[in-house]
C-alpha cells in the first residue's frame, strides 16, 4: 500500500491557485525530495498531506485512508522552525511530545541537560528529529532538515534519516538545496503549483542545458553579458548563461569584440529550478 497517494489535487486560496492538478505517490522506505522555488506550492502540498488543509479538488490518501486523528499518530513532522520548546531541555521536549502521542519517550543521546535554546543548531536538529520519530511514525515529513549545520553533522543527520527509511518509513523532504536533494532516492520538482519534473537527480539535471563561457579576462565578458533580465551566474571564472542558445551568447560576445570559449553543459539543479520557473 502506498504511504502517500495524491491524485488530481488542486488547492485555491480565493483567486490564487497554489497547487494545481498534482498527482504524486510514494511508498514505504522511499526518500523523496520535494524541490522548487518559493511559491512553487511545496508548503501547501505538504500541509494537505499532513491533513492540515483540505484540497479544493482531487483526493489525498495517506496509508490508503482519508485523514483521521488516529492517522496523525502515524506521521512525524519536523518544520523548519523545529517545533521545540526553547526553554525546556531536550529530554523535557521529548517527554512532553511523547505524552501527546501516547508513546514512550526516546532518550536523547547528546547534551540533554541544557535548555534547547542554548544548544548548537546541530544538537537542536537532532533533538527535533528524535522528538518527531519517537512514536515510530510510518511517514516522516522534513522541511530542510539539515540546513545550517556543519557538513559532518549533516551526514550524521542523514544517517538517522536513512536508518528510518531502511526500517520502512516513507520520508518526504522539502528542500531547495542541492546538498540535501542529492540524498533523496527520487526528486519531485514543483513550479507554480504543478509538478514539472520527477525522477532521479541525474535525470532532472540532464533535462536542461546552460552555456558555459570561458573568457580571458572573464570580467569583461561578464560585464557585456550582465544586461537586462538575462539569467546569469558565475562558477569560479566560468560564466554560465541560462535560457539562451550558444550561438546567441557567442554573437553577443563577438559584437563586443570578446573572444571566448563556449560550451553547452548540463544545468545544475539550481539552474534547472530557475529555468523551469521562468
Amino acid at each position, binding site marked *: 500500500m502506498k504511504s502517500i497517494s495524491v491524485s488530481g489535487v488542486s488547492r485555491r486560496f480565493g483567486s490564487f491557485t497554489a497547487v494545481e492538478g498534482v498527482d504524486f505517490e510514494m511508498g514505504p522506505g522511499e526518500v523523496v525530495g520535494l524541490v522548487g522555488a518559493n511559491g512553487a506550492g511545496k508548503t501547501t502540498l505538504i500541509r494537505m498531506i499532513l491533513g492540515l488543509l483540505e484540497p479544493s479538488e482531487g483526493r489525498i490518501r495517506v496509508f490508503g485512508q482519508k485523514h483521521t486523528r488516529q492517522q496523525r499518530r502515524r506521521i512525524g513532522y519536523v518544520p523548519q522552525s523545529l517545533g521545540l520548546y526553547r526553554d525546556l531541555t531536550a529530554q523535557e521536549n521529548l517527554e512532553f511530545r511523547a505524552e501527546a502521542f501516547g508513546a514512550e519517550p526516546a532518550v536523547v543521546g547528546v547534551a540533554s541537560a541544557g535548555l534547547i535554546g542554548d544548544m548548537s543548531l546541530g544538537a537542536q536538529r537532532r533533538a527535533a528529529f528524535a522528538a518527531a520519530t519517537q512514536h515510530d511514525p510510518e511517514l516522516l515529513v522534513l522541511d530542510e532538515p539539515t540546513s545550517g*549545520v556543519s*557538513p559532518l553533522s549533516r551526514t550524521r543527520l542523514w*544517517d538517522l534519516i536513512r536508518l528510518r527509511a531502511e526500517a520502512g518509513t516513507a520520508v518526504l523532504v522539502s528542500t531547495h538545496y542541492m546538498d540535501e536533494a542529492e540524498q533523496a532516492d527520487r526528486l519531485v520538482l514543483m513550479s507554480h503549483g504543478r509538478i514539472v519534473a520527477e525522477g532521479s537527480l541525474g535525470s532532472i539535471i540532464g533535462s536542461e542545458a546552460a552555456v558555459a563561457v570561458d573568457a580571458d579576462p572573464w570580467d569583461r565578458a561578464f560585464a557585456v553579458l550582465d544586461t537586462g533580465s538575462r539569467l546569469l551566474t558565475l562558477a569560479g571564472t566560468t560564466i554560465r548563461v541560462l535560457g539562451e542558445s550558444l550561438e546567441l551568447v557567442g554573437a553577443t560576445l563577438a559584437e563586443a569584440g570578446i573572444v571566448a570559449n563556449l560550451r553547452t553543459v548540463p544545468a545544475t539543479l539550481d539552474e534547472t*529550478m530557475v529555468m523551469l520557473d521562468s
Partner: protein
Amino acid sequence: MNAPSGVSWGVQDLKVDYGKTKALRRVSLRIQPGVIHAVVGGDGAGKTTLLRVLAGLGLDTGGIIRIPGAGRIGYVPPNGGVFGDLSVAENMEFVADAYRLSGWQPRGAALLGRAGLDRFGDRLAGRLSGGQRRKLAGSMALLPEPDLLVLDEVTTGVDPVSRMDLWRLIASAAAGGAGVVIATGYLDEAERAGQVLLLHEGTQLASGTPQALKEGMRGTVSDVPSPDGHRAWRRGRRWRQWDPDGAGGGKVTLEDVAIVAELSTEGRAR
C-alpha cells in the same frame, strides 16, 4: 574605485575572543580583488565573527588585519541590512546619504533592476519576501561601489530564483574588481567561488580554490558497499568511505573534502 593592483585585503593569524570564549584561532584569508571567496562552515564555525572583523566592526582581536576604510566596505549582516519600515527606494537613499554619494540614481536603478526589485520602489522593505529583502540588502551594500564586499549568509533560506539574482549581483561586483567574501553553509555554493575557506569551531580546516582543495585532500574517498567504522557516511543509498592512508585519486566533491577535514579534527580530539 577598486583596490590598487597588488593590494590585497585580508587577515593573517587572526585571533578573536568574546570574553573568555575563543571565537577564532589562527585564521588567515587573503582576499584578492575580483575574486569571490566563500567562507564555509556550520553553526558555531566562526563565519560571522570573521566577517564582522572584515567589515571593520570593533572586536577584541589579535593578528594582522588589512581592510579598506569604512567607506570602502559593503557589509550585509546575517538576517539584516535593510530598514523594514523604510521603502525600497528610501533604503537606497539612506545608503547614498550615509556614503555621501552623488549622481547615484542610475546605478541604484540598475542594481534594483538586476535584483528584480525595480517594480517595488514604494514597498516597505519589511513587506518584501525573504529573498527580496536579501537582494535589497545586497543592492544597498553594492551601491557605494565598495572595494570589499562582505556578505554574511545572504543566500541562506533564499529560494533558487532569488539566489541566482544574488549571485549575479555578487559576480557583477567581482567583475568590477571588488574583493568579495560570502559566508555560506552550502557546499554547492562554495563550489562556485574562486576561493574557499573551511571553518570549523573557530579554526581553519583548509583553504584554496575548490580544485586545489579536492586535489590536496588527504587519503582517498570512495563508494563502498557497506560502512567500516566511523569514517563512512551516506550519500543517498550509497556509502562513502574515507581511507586516510589511501593513495588519492577518484572523483571527490567539496562535500567529501569538508567531511574529511572535520573527521580529521575528530581524530585529533580522541
